């Protein structure tokens, strides 16, 4: 089926080469970065009210990071050569940084997870027998010191790793924004604001994900939802949402106000091809409404019943997950809806459901981290420290 076109397009410009997979990739790394920042707010910045989520946030970041490369791999025309980005990187390309950033962030995250769960691992190993004991003994890496001094050292190392992890998470995700922001051929991508916009929307999506997962997890475990934790998450979410929306609007308003030549294309793009996903989803439904709802939670939270606060935060978070997905879509797909002739548009793009890079593949990839998280939770319960307060990290 040939796409509907208007105006004049360069004949090679009618294809959407960067598909749903390239939408999913920044979406998933954004969730990683956001979740990680929440754990760091506790571990590094001492946000005690986020303690209930400290470990869970870390586990979430790890599970999502584990699949972050999958959409890329599925997108490649030759996935079997994908490893060459890491083995023989061509360093003039921003994309060549992927291997280094991804690998080093993964390593830091793994180390941090190990130090955070080390005491749990040792205790489980000592309590268990047979296979389970073997597994946990292996996970303990031969270190069985749980003395107060060792735990104190653990805490210091965790703080350092979490601190290193913050710029790493920013780099990993800022890099994704850079990939788009540094394409001078594309006026919808080419702006130094792009990495910053990506970063803030990453924080929004990661925190929103944790709000949802935390509430669901507490429901499943029958544990009451921590009021201070939700209130803190709502505050951070609101702050990052304000920053994120401001930057997203700023970029567009600058172009519109400057009457830059790009605006002829972008103005049309936003009001026609992307009118639903940009105006309705990214700006109003996923932007303005959560902004108001979270504003209510943050400003009037004192007078609020827990259930209302939880529900409002939950609804906002669901909308925000959609908002950030819409933002990724608008950047990635939107940037391919016009021709580089700057005078022609592709009218619609609907990804196929069953095709290789279609909706089903995207949903499947997004589903994997939740399975990983469930497994992680079985092996290393992330909320156990709530029952056993003293000396835990």
């Amino acid at each position, binding site marked *: 089926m040939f796409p509907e076109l208007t105006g004049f397009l*360069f004949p090679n410009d009618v294809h959407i080469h960067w598909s749903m997979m390239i939408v999913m990739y920044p979406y998933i790394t954004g969730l990683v970065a956001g979740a990680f920042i929440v754990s760091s707010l506790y571990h590094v910045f001492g946000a005690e009210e986020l303690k209930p989520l400290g470990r869970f946030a870390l586990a979430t970041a790890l599970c999502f990071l584990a699949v972050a490369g999958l959409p890329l791999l599925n997108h490649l025309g*030759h996935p079997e050569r994908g490893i060459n980005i890491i083995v023989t990187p061509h360093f003039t390309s921003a994309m*060549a940084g992927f291997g280094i950033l991804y690998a080093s962030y993964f390593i830091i995250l793994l180390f941090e997870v190990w130090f955070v769960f080390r005491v749990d691992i040792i205790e489980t190993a000592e309590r268990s027998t047979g296979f389970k004991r073997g597994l946990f003994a292996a996970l303990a890496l031969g270190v069985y010191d749980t003395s107060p001094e060792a735990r104190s050292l653990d805490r210091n190392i965790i703080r350092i790793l979490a601190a290193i992890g913050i710029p790493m998470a920013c780099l990993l995700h800022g890099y994704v924004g850079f990939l788009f922001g540094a394409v*001078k051929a594309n006026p919808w991508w080419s702006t130094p604001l792009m990495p910053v916009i990506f970063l803030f929307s990453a924080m929004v999506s990661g925190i929103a994900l944790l709000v949802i997962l935390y509430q669901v997890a507490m429901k499943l475990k029958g544990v009451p939802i921590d009021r201070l934790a939700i209130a803190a998450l709502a505050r951070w979410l609101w702050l990052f949402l304000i920053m994120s929306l401001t930057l997203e609007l700023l970029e567009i308003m600058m172009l519109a106000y400057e009457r830059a030549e790009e605006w002829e294309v972008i103005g049309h793009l936003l009001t026609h091809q992307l009118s639903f996903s940009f105006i309705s989803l990214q700006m109003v439904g996923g932007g303005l409404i959560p902004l108001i709802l979270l504003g209510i939670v943050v400003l009037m939270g004192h007078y609020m019943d827990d259930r209302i606060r939880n529900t409002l935060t939950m609804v906002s978070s669901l909308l925000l997950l959609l908002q950030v997905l819409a933002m990724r879509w608008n950047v990635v797909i939107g940037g391919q809806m016009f021709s580089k002739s700057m005078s022609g548009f592709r009218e619609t793009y609907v990804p196929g459901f069953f095709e290789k890079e279609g909706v089903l593949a995207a949903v499947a990839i997004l589903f994997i981290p939740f399975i990983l998280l469930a497994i992680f939770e079985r092996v290393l319960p992330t909320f156990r420290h709530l029952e056993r307060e003293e000396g835990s990290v």
Partner: protein
Amino acid sequence: MKHRHSHPDQQPDGVSRREFLHRSSAALAGAVAIVLILPEGSAAGISGAEYDWDRHTWVYVIDTTKCIGCGSCVSACRAENSVPEGMYRTWVERYEIPVTGEAFIDSPDGGEHGFDPVTSGMNVGKGFFVPKMCNHCRATPCTQVCPVGASFTTRDGVVLVDAEHCIGCGYCVQACPFGSRFINPTTHTADKCTWCYHRITKGLTTACVEICPVGARQLGNRDDPDDPVNEILATRRVQVLQPELLTRPQCYYLGLDMEVR
């Protein structure tokens, strides 16, 4: 620059009779030589000498005032390079610019099957065709962004893709401001004009230059002072596409208009 032509105003006619005869006899001789003498695979013999890429810097000149929009170049390119349907290593655009109002631009099927007559009823002030292709830019963003170095510039100035190493990420397609690249649906790798590298390194010219009936397209060697393109670049007013992007295109245009995209 040494002038090879006796009449300085000769260029608009393109190929002089002498040059035409010279070229066709050379081509004929070449063809005979291939058919009669050379076994398959010894193509270096076509030019009679080993190709030295240090003595070549390829440039391309497109004279839009000559193009008649026949689309032969697009077909020839497709046939020569097995370009998949719906994808274009070269294409031809038509510009119809009314006395007042918006320009009308089209390139149906990349101009491969020519152009239907204008039926819009607009009062066309000027109209012309613009052949397009990869500009083989000196400072090209497409090779810069290739994460594995599969896209590269040869020493003789041609931007190529190594289909054996391309991972098919599509970053170069996004980075090209001219829409010259595409992902080949058969090989799943980036694809683009090669200036018929397999031909020009054997003493032949590109398929599009070869087929063009009006001499609107010329490929030349910057390192050869006697090459006619050097005289054009030295004496005529040439332009490149989207110069503001500073990619230093090596396709030079004669008779470009401000409406050209």
